[in-house]
């Protein structure tokens, strides 16, 4: 009988199933699908924005691959993914473009649609958009 207890104890410890601590909740970045999903959603959103008549002027002459990487890094940082955002602050980065509210809103719509098309959890998507909302004041030109 004693011989059986030790292997059971070893298995229990190995599986970590015997402790009462629950596993940590996945951060927002993980809930969004992590780098592969967020990066793909950003790339598709920016590709659309660069061609949509409502938003295209701001992307004229911009190397989209460089921009995509910077935005993905920013979203990773904002959603607790552990990235350090190395890009510029939103006010300085957009100052010379004089972004209109309609342009900002159109881009957010595209971002929302691309998250949905990627079947990202709605709760996670909305949590991210809530965290991005305060950026509007920095990005949209003061009129």
């Amino acid at each position, binding site marked *: 009988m004693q011989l059986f207890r030790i292997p059971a104890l070893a298995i229990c410890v190995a599986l970590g199933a015997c402790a009462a601590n629950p596993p940590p909740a996945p951060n927002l970045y993980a809930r969004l699908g992590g780098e592969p999903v967020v990066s793909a959603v950003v790339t598709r959103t920016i590709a659309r924005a660069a061609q949509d008549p409502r938003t295209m002027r701001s992307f004229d*002459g911009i*190397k989209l691959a*460089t*921009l995509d990487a910077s935005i993905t890094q920013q979203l990773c940082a904002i959603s607790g993914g552990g990235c350090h955002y*190395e*890009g*510029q602050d939103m006010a*300085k*980065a957009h100052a*010379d473009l004089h972004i209109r509210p309609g342009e900002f809103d159109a881009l957010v719509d595209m971002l929302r649609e691309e998250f949905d098309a990627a079947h990202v959890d709605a709760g996670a998507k909305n949590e991210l958009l809530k965290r991005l909302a305060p950026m509007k004041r920095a990005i949209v030109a003061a009129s």
Partner: protein
Amino acid sequence: MAEQLRRGARTLVLALFSLGGATAQAVPWTFQVRDAAGHPLADAVVAVLAHGKPSKTTSAHAEMGQRNRQFTPQLLVVQTGTAVAFPNYDSVRHQVYSFSPIKVFELKLYAAGTPTDQVFDKPGVATLACNIHDRMHANIVVVDTPLFATTDASGTAHLDLPPGEHQLQYWHEQSKNAAVLQSQPLNVGDSAGSTQLTIGG
């Protein structure tokens, strides 16, 4: 008495000769550059590697800024050894880089006020771009001489040259091999002269 006069005369002649040599240093030279169709070519670079003139500098400074998402100026000619600063006058950051063999460098996203000097220590042509803004491009032409000029809208440039057998180097963005400087001999006598050049296919 006659001997003294002769010696005096010889001294005077020698003095005049060297004075004459000094004033003959600056010979005005005109360069006329045209394209293959015969039209005057602006923004062509001419440089004269003159015998006896220093090829490199250790003190010269120049600047190529960024303003309104473009380099300013878009063509910069410097003597080999010049330190070039790249001040950013925009509110957006730029990421300036060059892959040209004479000077490979990258200035990662920087804002106004960041020191950015790069020493261009090899002659040739460097092409610059920005990793974010597609339309930004510029050239820095590096020459082993302080004697250089750029043609104006009439395709003309002027230099004051010492007499002698020199090497002329020239370049234009539209030439068939714009990655390198073209070269040919240039003989400068005692009187003003000119050189006609055709650049471009």
